[in-house]
């Protein structure tokens, strides 16, 4: 019997969740919409908002779970990577809570938590499995041997896939966050209308900055009416190229690892064409494919509570002297 409170504050979502006896019983997320008008997350504004949101969000998660404070076995929090100011708010709040309740503190790596989100609900992949994590801040291929043993096989050398979606959406004039807007715009477009170069990065590394530059230069050479006439085709072509970059590397990793199970994680896994391409690739390679429910793909404390439970049962705790780490290694 165990009850873990998870707290997530790595970027612009304040979230708290309760993991009780093997499942998530509450998962509260408050998103900060104030950043939309600036076209990106402003760290100082995000930090202030986290401090305002954190106590009500945690209380709401406890109430929804029907838990008393004394039911908690441990407090899990996002230690990093992420934005320093927001991480500090969640980390310090978690420390105060753990001290007040005299229970263990568990520091969770945000990127590992995205992967362990696959253990929240059935169907769950058996170990080992190959995971492609695609979010606004990271793009990684990870070989997952167990809940606490993971090896990074490849990652992006520059921009993350989600960042590429957002930046190119911004070039087209779409609001922040651009990824979902770009997908919607692309629904009525032809993905083969415009051709962009697939980067030749070594091994299992990714790169998206060249594509961004290519798109920017292409747009600069077009006449003023280009986007009003071709926006949907252009968005579809960009999306097709990003998905193609991801799938080529995933396929290469599948061959190298001889994976029997592949998993998709991170906020960008909400992208429809990416999910479809991922499932088709799995089918073609005779692999099992796993994608968590949408609410566990984006930044959420459910995955932190789940990962916290895995660390807690392995006896891996965080010292009170530890600090948040915006560049926390995998």
């Amino acid at each position: 019997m165990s009850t873990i409170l998870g707290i997530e504050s790595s970027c612009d979502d304040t979230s708290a969740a309760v993991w009780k006896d093997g499942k998530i019983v509450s998962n509260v997320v408050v998103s900060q919409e104030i950043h939309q008008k600036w076209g990106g997350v402003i760290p100082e504004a995000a930090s202030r908002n986290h401090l305002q949101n954190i106590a009500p969000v945690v209380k709401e998660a406890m109430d929804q779970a029907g838990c008393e404070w004394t039911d908690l076995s441990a407090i899990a929090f996002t230690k990093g990577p992420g934005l320093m100011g927001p991480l500090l708010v969640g980390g310090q709040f978690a420390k105060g809570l753990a001290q007040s309740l005299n229970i263990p503190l568990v520091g969770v790596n945000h990127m590992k938590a995205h992967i362990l989100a696959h253990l929240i609900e059935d169907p769950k992949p058996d170990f080992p499995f190959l995971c492609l994590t695609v979010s606004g801040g990271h793009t990684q291929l990870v070989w997952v041997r167990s809940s606490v043993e993971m090896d990074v096989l490849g990652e992006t050398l520059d921009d993350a896939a989600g960042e590429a979606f957002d930046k190119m959406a911004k070039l087209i004039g779409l609001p922040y966050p651009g990824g979902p807007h770009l997908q919607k715009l692309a629904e009525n477009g032809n993905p083969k209308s415009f051709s962009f170069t697939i980067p030749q990065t070594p091994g299992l590394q990714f790169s998206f900055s060249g594509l961004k530059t290519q798109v920017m230069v292409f747009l600069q050479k077009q006449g003023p009416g280009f986007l009003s006439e071709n926006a949907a085709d252009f968005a579809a072509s960009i999306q097709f190229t990003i998905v193609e970059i991801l799938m080529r590397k995933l396929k290469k990793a599948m061959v190298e690892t001889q994976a029997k199970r592949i998993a998709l994680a991170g906020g960008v896994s909400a992208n429809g064409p990416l999910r479809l391409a991922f499932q088709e690739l799995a089918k073609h390679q005779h692999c099992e494919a796993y994608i968590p429910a949408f609410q566990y793909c984006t930044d959420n404390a459910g995955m932190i509570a789940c990962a916290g439970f895995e660390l807690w049962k392995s006896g891996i705790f965080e010292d009170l002297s530890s600090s948040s780490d915006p560049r926390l290694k995998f």
Partner: protein
Amino acid sequence: MFFLLIETSHSKGSISLFEDSVCLEETFLEGDFKHAELLAVGVQGLLNRHELDAEKISAVGISDGPGSYTGLRIGASWAKGFCLPTSTPLIACSETKALMAATQNHQNVLCIIDARRMEVFGEWMDENGNSNGTQAWILDETLVTEWQKKNPNLAGDGVDKLMENFPFPWKDSLIRYADSRHLFHEFIQKWESKQFENIFSYEPNYVKPVFLAPSKK
């Protein structure tokens, strides 16, 4: 009754444990801006040495600012987490009032806290002990000339910047930082009058809002 007072608004952080009006111990967070690593450890050390647990703490006092935004949030975040399960009252204490307590002077005192470049955050308590509250000031000739006419007692880490840029026979208290025990003066007044913060909505006195022009890209 036991009270925990936490000062994290500047580089020289500290924590005090009071029993009623007696400071049992004050501990300093060694190393500039190591608050995130040292605050929880410092509190635990104090509690352990005095054989107390969280439920024995009647109220927690924190610096409300003005001061380092990150430092203020570290103290406030930790205190919210600590107070929430036990419904322990949270009391926010002004940093400028704490500086005045450190100078032991509450009349004609100008407390100024460095806010980078030529800006300071501060409060002026006039000859009659009246104040307009905390403000953000840009140090320029006009403002400083006004201050020189009144020649107040100076305190705070903005004083060095003032004296360097505007030489004058200032009355320097030599107090640059308030310690956690200096928060007690305002803390106990608020405790007695039950002026507690709402843990669910409290935010420090940042003095200034986040202001950025909307993106033009």
